């Protein structure tokens, strides 16, 4: 559906993206992750045909997004990272205008979406809050039922309830066979919707992973509270299981597969309590970054 091949764009000042390649299959929800300034939006701008790549290409269903700008857009719905509507219009006027530009009769779907997201379309755009603009943007991206929907930071500005609703919307569209490319730094959102995710850092694609794979890479944090602080000290000193931190009789250990060592070592002492928390995906990604950073050094 979407093929990004060796996409390179360097800006004066050294920033930009370098040799970014990934493929999004039909019907897949693909997450695009990375910290601010990593190159997510730059990549998306190329996919939308706003910029000409220095090298490489982006294509949707075989159509080059730069050379065939204006044709490719028939297949695409887009939610920009920073939403700016044309001034001097109400939400309704804007959506009606955009529908005419999209050349699809989307009145029914538009109304459904507005009802779902619950906002007053007759509000002038300049009086809208960020969250409300985000809702108008989501309607604009979904209403013409495109084959591929590109979302740049879709839930920023939405309250938790609306974030939840948004995830439902994405999953419903996914069930209908719509393909998604979604940039985000909200990991729960990616965890719940995406099949695969690419991680970008400093303009370079660090990894492309199956979400389940990433989940299996999760480390578990085990918090052990010992009966005696001395035991805690001895446990850390033994070094059988590397401890993350120690605070009095409380020791935090990160476990990734080495459960036996942990149990053997901990069994030597009197344990008062034990708590296990799974590391969230965010930390898994951070680990990725750190490892890459260490390798570069």
């Amino acid at each position, binding site marked *: 559906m979407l093929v990004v091949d060796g996409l390179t764009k360097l800006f004066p000042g050294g920033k930009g993206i370098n040799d970014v390649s990934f493929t999004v299959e039909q019907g897949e929800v693909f997450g695009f992750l990375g910290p601010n300034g990593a190159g997510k939006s730059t990549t998306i701008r190329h996919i939308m045909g*706003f910029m*000409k790549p220095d090298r490489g290409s982006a294509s949707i269903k075989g159509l080059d997004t730069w050379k065939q*700008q204006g044709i490719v857009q*028939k297949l695409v719905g887009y939610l920009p990272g920073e939403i700016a509507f044309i*001034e001097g219009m109400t939400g309704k006027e804007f959506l009606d205008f955009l529908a005419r*530009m999209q050349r699809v009769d989307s009145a029914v779907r538009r109304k459904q979406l507005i009802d779902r997201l619950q906002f007053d379309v007759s509000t002038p755009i300049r009086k809208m809050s960020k969250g409300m603009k985000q809702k108008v943007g989501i309607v*604009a991206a979904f209403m013409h039922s495109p084959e591929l929907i590109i979302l740049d930071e879709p839930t920023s500005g939405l309250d938790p309830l609306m974030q939840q609703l948004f995830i439902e919307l994405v999953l419903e569209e996914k069930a209908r066979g719509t393909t998604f490319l979604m940039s985000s730094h909200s990991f729960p959102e990616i965890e719940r919707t995406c099949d695969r995710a690419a991680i970008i850092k400093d303009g370079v694609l660090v990894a492309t992973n199956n979400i389940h794979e990433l989940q299996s890479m999760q480390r578990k944090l085990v918090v052990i509270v010992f009966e005696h602080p001395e035991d805690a000290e001895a446990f850390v000193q033994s070094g059988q299981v590397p401890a993350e931190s120690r605070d009095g009789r409380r020791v935090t250990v990160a476990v990734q597969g080495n459960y036996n060592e942990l149990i053997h070592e901990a069994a030597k002492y009197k344990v008062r309590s034990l708590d296990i928390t799974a590391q969230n995906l965010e930390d898994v990604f951070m680990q990725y970054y750190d490892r890459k950073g260490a390798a570069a050094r």
Partner: protein
Amino acid sequence: MNLPLFKQMMKIHAKGMSNYAFGSAFYILLMFWLYPGIADNTGALNELLKSMPEGIVNAFNIQGGFGSMEAFISGEYYGLILPLLLSIFSIMLSTGLMARLVDQGSMSYLLSTPTTRRQVAITQAGVLSAGLLLIILVTTGAGLLGYVWFIGDQFEFNGARYIEMNVVAWMLFIAASGITFLISSVINDEKKALGTSGFIIIGMFALDMLGKISGSVDWLRYGSIFSLYRPSDIAAGSGDPLLASLVLLAIGLACFAAGIIAFSKRDLPL
């Protein structure tokens, strides 16, 4: 040309356009209304003009004197006020149609629909030209109406020369708005686009004026499109308005085309 976009843009900018058009119409009607009173003192006024330094008279395009209606209007309106009004209009509207949409980011919405950049740029150029045409038509119409209402058969009025004057003014501003459109198509920052096109257009206007004030810096005028616009010559029946119009039109069309092409090929920070 994208029809939904054209309609929407016309709707958004209709108020601004009609403000300029009605302002211009009102002013020209006022001039026609005043003329009979002035015409009675033509002799004295022409004497006054003669006593003024020639450079000043030339600079303000009032060398036509007050002898005929079209000479009067060429000096009092077409010489200074109308060019300034239309310069401001071209600078403001072309910035609002191109650079502002890029700067604010709403251009990303236009380009996320199945419309090529070329179509978007051509449509915006069309909106600018339509606004310009509207102002010129309303102004010309108001002048003719003013003639019928206030002048009648009392005074000499050469309608053909008056129309000619309007046509050359129109061509002048096709050239000027072509230049501002080109600038607005290649600059990402709204304020910078506004400043640059303001500097160039008002600068050209000033160059032409300076060149006319003093013969020694006459050459300054060759850098200005305004030197091709001589309303007082047209009123006097001299000069070559056809050639001037063709040159201005050619400049305008070339600039519009360059703006459209430049916009289609460049990176947009959306």
